[in-house]
């Protein structure tokens, strides 16, 4: 049970990985303004990642 949050994070970042692979594959033909949206997408995901890591590392929760 201690490692359950990591499994959840894996499911989320599996999906994220697939999204940004589709973007990175054609990075050179995507205009910069559109690429900024994807970068914003990644930055938005940074906050829950940090919170989830803090929660996962806190042993009292599990």
């Amino acid at each position: 049970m201690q490692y359950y949050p990591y499994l959840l994070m894996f499911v989320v970042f599996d999906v994220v990985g697939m999204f940004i692979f589709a973007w990175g594959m054609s990075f050179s033909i995507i205009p910069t303004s559109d690429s900024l949206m994807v970068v914003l997408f990644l930055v938005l995901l940074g906050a829950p990642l940090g919170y989830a890591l803090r929660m996962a590392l806190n042993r009292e929760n599990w």
Partner: protein
Amino acid sequence: MPTLVSYIIVSAALLGIGIYGLSVKRNAIRILFAVELIVNAANLNFIAFARFMNPPRVSGQVIVFYSIAAAAMEAAVGLALILVAFRLNSSIDVRKLNKLKG
């Protein structure tokens, strides 16, 4: 060559299997299986229509991206709910989860 109709029929059969599981099964995890099958039936239709359009459209594939992501998240939250239900009730039979009944 398989036609568009044959793909729709396969997808309808998958949907039927999913609906059956959803309405009959009592184990929460099996109900989750059924929901995933229904989502997959929908995805199959999207991809088939995107391919058979003239000219083919990528938008149909992009919506499946979002659909797969949403289904994965639904499974994650659903399984967390099942865990909580098991912890509170020590059973995942949906008919025994009737604590709210007056």
